[in-house]
């Protein structure tokens, strides 16, 4: 938690190598989300042009951004 909403790529072996991890922090009393971060796993192949055999950035991250909104 650093006060920024980060979207980044990193090694996610500490989570047993998932595709992506989204984290958000919220104030339990008010329901306000104070920060949200998205980390894509850099150990996977990513592309934005539909390249076969890759994970599509827009597809995956649109899904993850939903978690920013507590969906």
């Amino acid at each position, binding site marked *: *938690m650093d*006060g920024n909403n980060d979207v980044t790529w990193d090694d996610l072996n500490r989570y047993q190598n*998932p595709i992506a991890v989204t984290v958000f922090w*919220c*104030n339990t009393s008010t329901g306000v989300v104070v920060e949200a971060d998205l980390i894509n796993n850099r150990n996977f192949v990513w592309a934005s042009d539909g390249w076969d055999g890759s994970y599509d950035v827009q597809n995956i991250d649109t899904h993850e951004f939903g978690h920013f909104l*507590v*969906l």
Partner: protein
Amino acid sequence: MKTQRRCLISALVIVLILAFSASPVLAAPGDTGNGTIPPGLTKVTFVHHAGNAPDVIVERGPGGNGNPFVSGEASVCSDAGLPTCDSFDWDGQHWPGASVEYNVNLKNSGDDGGFLSAIQPQRKLGSTTPVQPSQPDGRQQRRHVGRPK
């Protein structure tokens, strides 16, 4: 010449001091900057593995009164809005929740849709015994993060 050099050095020192004292990021309210969960906040982590619904890990910071062991029950996790558990009962035992990690399933999901208001505790990670204070401030060490088996 000597005076000019002194002025130049002084200016350089001032520039260096300003450069190292300026903060590029304004900290958000409640930001501890050390990886801990600030009091009154809940940290929710979605871990997505290929082809599976995510593991959802809910971690609570210390309660609003500063006591990390605030009473509560698992069932109140389904209160409207966001998770409000300070602790939960699992397998007939009471688990203080201030630093407890647990996986949840989203109730109405074939994938992982739905709202967090529908989460239910699925299983406790790691130990099969209630959380016991193991550190001076009463917090438990963080547990292993992984998929439910």
